[in-house]
């Protein structure tokens, strides 16, 4: 390094000559362009832009110049150094992008190697089905009512106009708790909840009651001693069978799709009068299989209709047993088998699949909404 020029020695400094500076810049630019990665660029920066780089050393010589020359040389040096610095920044940016891309490329995995590390769970489709059906009614303003599964005979039979000698008691084979004289049975239907709802709530009553029921059938492909029903009851002023039909049509639409109709056929239940069976239009063929033998329908057996459950207008005798004035109030009630609904809505062909607890059955339904 030259000492500061105090004597104003009129000798020029060779390293500050334009040509020398340009050579430095050129050398720097070549080196920068040649840096293949950020590490190399770091070295280049040290060599061409660092404190000991030719340009930095030359810059110090400015002090040795006569005052008249300082301005011009200073400007030249500034431009040169800026040029190198800009080139460094640009190259750095380029190399950073390249580096990032390489790292990402190197970290690539085979995403198809995933395995189910966490076990798969699922809710039982009967549970989901009961919630789905209940939801239709809750959205309309119904509430979900419940009752005990081991139920007083009075609620299960007597209060529903099924007297001690009523033939309906022979239609259903009942589990008796303790003894046949205990007065307690496993409820054979969800209908006792009708009476409980009328006793526990103030009018009007609009409730739906999903739940477990019991009959002494042996388990086979189409029977099970433990199964599920969903019951609905509406008691209000001016309730008609047209309301029953409208409600069932709505449920059918929500469960099976727009435009699906229900059909009522006269039938008999002691706790409803008039009574009807509910058929729902086959949601698969919508009845087209009836007239067209070439495309039979497995879901409805080419009948066009599927038997779904029972319903009717609440028998005034039931209202009386609940202390409801049948002159002022009327009501409808309906009940469907949940297993049955699952069987035809989802194509379950064997009742045993629903009761055995094979996890593969339930897992197929997953967290179905």
């Amino acid at each position, binding site marked *: 390094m030259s000492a500061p020029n105090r004597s104003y020695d009129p000798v020029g400094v060779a390293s500050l000559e334009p040509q020398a500076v340009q050579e430095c810049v050129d050398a720097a630019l070549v080196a920068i362009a040649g840096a293949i990665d950020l590490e190399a660029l770091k070295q280049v920066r040290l060599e061409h832009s660092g404190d000991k780089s030719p340009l930095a050393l030359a810059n110090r010589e400015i002090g040795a110049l006569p005052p008249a020359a300082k301005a011009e040389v200073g400007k030249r040096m500034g431009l040169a150094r800026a040029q190198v610095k800009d080139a460094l920044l640009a190259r750095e940016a380029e190399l950073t992008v390249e580096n990032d891309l390489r790292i990402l490329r190197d970290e690539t995995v085979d995403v198809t190697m995933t395995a189910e590390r966490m076990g798969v*769970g699922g809710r039982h489709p009967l549970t989901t089905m009961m919630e789905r059906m209940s939801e239709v009614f809750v959205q309309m303003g119904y509430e979900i009512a419940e009752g005990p*599964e081991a139920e007083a005979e009075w609620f299960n039979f007597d209060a529903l106009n099924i007297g001690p000698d009523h033939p309906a008691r022979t239609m259903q084979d009942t*589990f008796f708790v303790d003894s046949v004289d205990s007065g307690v049975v496993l409820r054979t239907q969800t209908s006792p909840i009708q009476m409980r709802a009328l006793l526990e709530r103030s009018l009007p009553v609009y409730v739906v009651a999903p739940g477990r029921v019991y009959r002494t059938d042996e388990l086979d492909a189409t029977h099970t001693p433990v199964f599920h029903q969903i019951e609905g009851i509406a008691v209000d002023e001016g309730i008609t069978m047209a309301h029953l039909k409208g409600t069932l049509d709505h449920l059918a639409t929500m469960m099976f799709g727009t435009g699906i109709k229900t059909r009522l056929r006269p039938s008999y239940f002691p706790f409803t009068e008039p009574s009807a069976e509910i058929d729902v239009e086959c949601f698969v063929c919508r009845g087209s299989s009836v007239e067209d033998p070439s495309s039979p329908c497995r879901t409805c057996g080419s009948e066009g209709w599927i038997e779904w459950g029972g319903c009717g207008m609440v028998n005034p005798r039931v209202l009386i*047993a609940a202390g409801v004035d049948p002159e002022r109030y009327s009501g409808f009630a309906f009940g469907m088998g949940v297993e049955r609904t699952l069987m035809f809505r989802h194509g379950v062909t064997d009742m045993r699949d629903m009761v055995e607890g094979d996890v593969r059955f339930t897992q197929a339904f997953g967290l179905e909404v």
Partner: protein
Amino acid sequence: MRVSMTWVRDWVELPADISGREVAERLIAAGLEVESVETVGAGLDGDLTVGRVVDIEELTGFKKPIRWCQVDLGPDHGGVRGIVCGASNFIVDDHVAVAIPGTQLPGGFLIAARETYGHISDGMICSERELGLGDDHAGIMVLSNTETGVDAKALLGIGDEILDIAVTPDRGYALSIRGVAREVATAFGIDFHDRAMDLVDLPAPAVDAMPWPCDVDDARIAELFTLRRVVGFNPAAHTPAWIRRRINSAGMRPVSLAVDVTNYVMLETGQPLHAFDGAKLRGAVRASWAGSHGSFTTLDHVKRTLQPDDIVIRDDSGPLGLAGIMGGLTSEIGAESTDIVLEAAWFVSSTVAKSARRHRLSSEASRRFERGVDRVLAPYASARAAQLLLAYGGGSYVGLTAWESPYEPTVISLAGQLPARTGGLPIESSVVKERLEAVGCEVGDNATEGSADNFAVVVPPWRPDLIDPADLVEEVLRLGGYDVLPSVLPVISAGRGLTAAQRIRRRVGISLAGIGVTDVLTYPFIGDVDLDACLIASEDSRRRSVVLANPINDEQPFLRSTLIPGLLGVLRRNTARGVEHVAVSEIGRVFTAAQQISDGGVGIRPSVSRRPSQEEVSALESLLPIQPYHVAAVLSGERMRSGWWGSGQDYIWADAIEIATMVGREAGVSLSVEASQYAPWHPGRTAALSADGHTIGYAGEIDPRVLGRLGLPPRTCAFELDLSRLTDLATMVQPAPQISSAPVAKEDLALVVDHEVAASDVAAAIRDGGGVLVESVRLFDVYAGPQVPAGKRSLAFALRLRAEDRTLTAEEITRVRNDAIAAAEQRCGAVLR
């Protein structure tokens, strides 16, 4: 009830082109459940002709008797044909049904002339079974009252359609051709003439014999009881083919003329009849309570032990039959019976139902009496039966004896607009009247009600089910067709949605499924064998079992008091089916007997003619077992699978506890954990989970002895919580926490304690000792080994300290740390490591 359409056509002038299927559709719409429509002899294609046997040659030398017959079919069907036949129940001059070559039998068998047993057999002499008419294949059909060359198909009822109708308990009248025919007539708008009420022309009673005396002990047994007698009857007389055919068409079997006639009249009119052999009767025949009459044997050869309130028919010798259900062996019609005493009666339906149920005996008669038989029909029906007996079995008519209590038909007052109000559509009063008359009611204006639009409806004697106005409404609406009802949604005010319990049950189910547990629904039946296998002690409250009087399986007569046995069964089934890692849960009710002994529950039977009192409802409720909802899970195998990422993690006791506390959080309840012992869990690996001082349930590893005994995978874990109790403790309004934005200070503490000291107690001591500045305490390491004294272990806790409003100073941090250590030392004997 199997209903022959040709029989119905005897009663209704139905246009010939209306098929059985069309009739079925109309009947279904009217409320009769027609389950099937079959055609008799369906599949028979070609001629079936009546032939007369003119010659029989017995062929010998074969394994079974074979006949070479010459049968005359008349000039139009090839005259005399030679036919080989394997049956022997016919003689020369008998008429038989012959299928000639070219005819195809039901089942697709094509008749052809072919050589067999050394002759060319030019046709086939048919049996009932070959034509699909019945099961009788003992021989071929011998036809009576016919001529050579006649079409045998019409004669045999081939082509007749049979409607199989499932009759609901309210429609007893439809258990008869008469009742179904009335519905058909109404459905097609055809006039109906009730032939059952026509007077039958019987000869004047013979004077040399007496009608058989009868009596009824109590009008609660029978309101009408009749005996009609025929003597000099020919017991060898055959039942004419048309009666046999119709009995067959109804699915019953012909027996003998006297029995067949009673069945025929029952099928046609709905009135059950019973024929006694007068020679076997001793004194008056009476309907009475069984009282102390011990036992007797019914026609089905079963000895019946009578209860005092059974009703029986008896004479001086004792019980002759269960009234309205089945006759007895002693007075049965036999091959020598010439003195026929026909019983026709109206028994009280509830009494018959009770006896039939008690004796598990359902007969054609009892099915009808249970549902209700026409109150006035008995003498008409027995007259028709006597007429048939005389016509086909000869003999002399002797006369009738009868006992009857006064009959008052039911009269119902019906507001003319009630059907419209119930159906939700306009119905003219005149239409209401018209439809009720079609049912058989007499409809008059009810002047006493002071309204022109009010009917007094007299119910016909065959419709005991019509009692209330609502019953009449159903008749009016069903005859109009339910398909015309409008479809309208009721307008409902806002509901309150799901209850907290219902919401929590759903959330628990969803969250368990979300962490990989599969929901199952098991049967709630268990037995001592299940409780024993789970090592549940005899004094355990889960042994306070609710017992079923009639379980499906005698090994499992209890309702479950715990969900665990059912889930272990599911685990076993899945394991047996090759599923390796099984995590299953169930949400369902469990049952334990109420403290109070539920005895004489049937005594609590509130009147149904008013609302039960609160006391009555409470009395009913007190009978019931305690039946809360539980949630349980059984966890077996890997919770996290092993694979290329490394080894998996098996479900361990800690998972069971963690998942159980997660269930608690779903209900907004923080469950605390402490060591416990509770079967079927491992005595050293059981946590009791509690909240607010209530034990909510247990979690941990299942006792290896239980797993061994049941052959289940080792280290299987489980939890079970009382979900109902959890719900009761649910946090409904969670207060918001104070969130501090001041910096956190982290401190670790390793404390050496005795093995027996619970980690949760040490953590609690740290938290309490450290005070409000302790934000959280987390156990992150446990060490036992050479670095600590024997019988001790080191527990390492990570503390997070934070002030509400400032950065903690070093002094504050040290003070908290020292206070925490001091508390742990004092309460748990902990020493800083």
